[in-house]
């Protein structure tokens, strides 16, 4: 690494930590950032942040899990502390995404991947986290926007099938800013997660368009992901839109299975589960650990947040299907392999997970949840400001 790159990676790592940290920890991350800036030698600066990154991520998880939720009883009046412990599926998933990408970068670096590939994965992570964080505070998470965005995403996948870059008969890619991106990998997981809570006609139509596009491309892996996600959503809450989505995605998957897929494996992208252990035992373990972590938010959410189990089941189905397709064929390895698209897709899909317990409805656990003031992370943001201020005994 040249000095400038080392400095940029160090400052980028600080930015990621700052993005993940609850408000109570952010001054400390800023303090760390200032120390990094003050260190004259670029590589020493990178070493300083590298030595602290993993443990600070653990500290952020601990702070997030220890936070206490705050319910504002009346707008403009006093906020009251709720003693029940809470947690954030999104927060945990963000930490998981960072850790998985870090493990993937470790594997790729040990396998001799060019620094550009590492930088693309890191950039995709930062962009994804920024988009999720900003969207939580915007009106774009509301229903009309969800429908419009789903349609736009479906048309992007269809556009790729019709006008995208074709390799060995598969048209899955498009060229943006010098990068070859696979749009379906980025948008399909998010589209499915939107469908869990919004089964309007537009969102269902978007799923059908995406299914047709994946059959045309053809993309067996993403068609399988679409079918797995919609199928689980339909099992959890069977209704006409779920039936339509299931039939469309099932037919698309069947069509991709019927068509030959002769695309060879790309280094650092495909077949990573088979080649990582050839690089080094630790590289293989990093890939396995990073992959297992991808499902962790769904598992933890399923156990701790019974009211939103539909989201966690579908999230697990999406990423288990993606992992399975990477394990059995020449398809991108999610997050831990080189695929900025998969990193972005994972982070965007985790942005559709529930916030804390803002959507818990014990009387109708699996019903769709329309947008509400707490549906954009505001509960969590307030808890960031108030929680974690009590003295904590020193335990070393």
């Amino acid at each position, binding site marked *: 690494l040249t000095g400038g790159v080392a400095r940029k990676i160090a400052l980028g790592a600080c930015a990621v930590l700052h993005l993940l940290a609850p408000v109570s*920890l952010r*001054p*400390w991350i*800023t*303090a*760390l950032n*200032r*120390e990094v*800036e*003050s*260190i004259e030698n670029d590589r020493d600066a990178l070493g*300083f*942040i590298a*030595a*602290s*990154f*993993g*443990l*600070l991520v653990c*500290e952020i998880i601990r702070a997030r899990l220890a936070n206490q939720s705050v319910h504002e009883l009346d707008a403009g009046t006093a906020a009251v502390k709720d003693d029940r412990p809470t947690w954030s599926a999104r927060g945990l998933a963000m930490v998981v995404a960072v850790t998985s990408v870090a493990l993937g970068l470790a594997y790729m670096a040990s396998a001799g991947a060019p620094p550009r590939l590492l930088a693309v994965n890191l950039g995709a992570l930062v962009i994804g986290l920024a988009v999720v964080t900003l969207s939580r505070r915007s009106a774009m998470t509301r229903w009309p926007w969800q429908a419009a965005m789903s349609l736009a995403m479906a048309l992007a996948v269809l556009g790729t099938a019709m006008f995208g870059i074709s390799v060995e008969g598969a048209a899955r890619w498009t060229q943006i800013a010098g990068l070859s991106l696979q749009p379906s990998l980025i948008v399909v997981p998010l589209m499915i997660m939107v469908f869990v809570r919004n089964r309007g006609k537009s969102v269902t139509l978007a799923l059908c368009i995406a299914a047709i596009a994946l059959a045309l491309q053809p993309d067996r892996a993403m068609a399988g992901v679409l079918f797995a996600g919609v199928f689980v959503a339909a099992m959890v809450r069977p209704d006409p839109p779920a039936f339509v989505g299931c039939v469309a995605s099932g037919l698309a998957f069947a069509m991709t299975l019927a068509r030959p897929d002769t695309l060879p494996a790309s280094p650092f992208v495909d077949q990573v589960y088979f080649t990582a252990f050839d690089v080094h035992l630790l590289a293989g373990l990093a890939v396995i650990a990073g992959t297992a972590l991808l499902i962790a938010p769904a598992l933890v959410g399923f156990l701790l947040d019974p009211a939103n189990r539909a989201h966690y089941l579908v999230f697990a189905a999406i990423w288990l299907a993606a992992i399975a397709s990477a394990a059995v064929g020449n398809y991108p390895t999610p997050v831990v392999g080189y695929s900025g698209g998969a990193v972005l897709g994972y982070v965007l899909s985790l942005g559709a997970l529930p916030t804390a317990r803002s959507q818990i409805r014990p009387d109708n656990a699996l019903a769709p949840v329309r947008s509400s003031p707490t549906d954009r992370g505001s509960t969590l943001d307030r808890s960031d400001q108030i929680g974690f201020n*009590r*003295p*904590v*005994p*020193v*335990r*070393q």
Partner: protein
Amino acid sequence: MSRAFSPQARSVLAILLSQGTVWSHGYDLARAAQVKSGTLYPLLIRLEQAGLLEAEWQASPQPGKPPRHAYRLTASGKQVALDNPPDRRASMVDSAIGAAS
């Protein structure tokens, strides 16, 4: 408050104690105490939360440089540091390694 300080925590406390009322910065503390930054910052967070450490932003003496976070022990922190000196065996091992190298 029951505590079982790690050797690293004792080292950091000893460095801060030796500085008295002088403020220290994170990078300098990590180097002086020979601890990783990943060990240092969680420790500083807990010390500050327990009221053993003062932390404040200080303007850089160099123009154009942003402020840095600086630390020093509170009165109770100094007492805790005195009650928990660096581990002698660890210090002896460190000294022996230093002498051998």
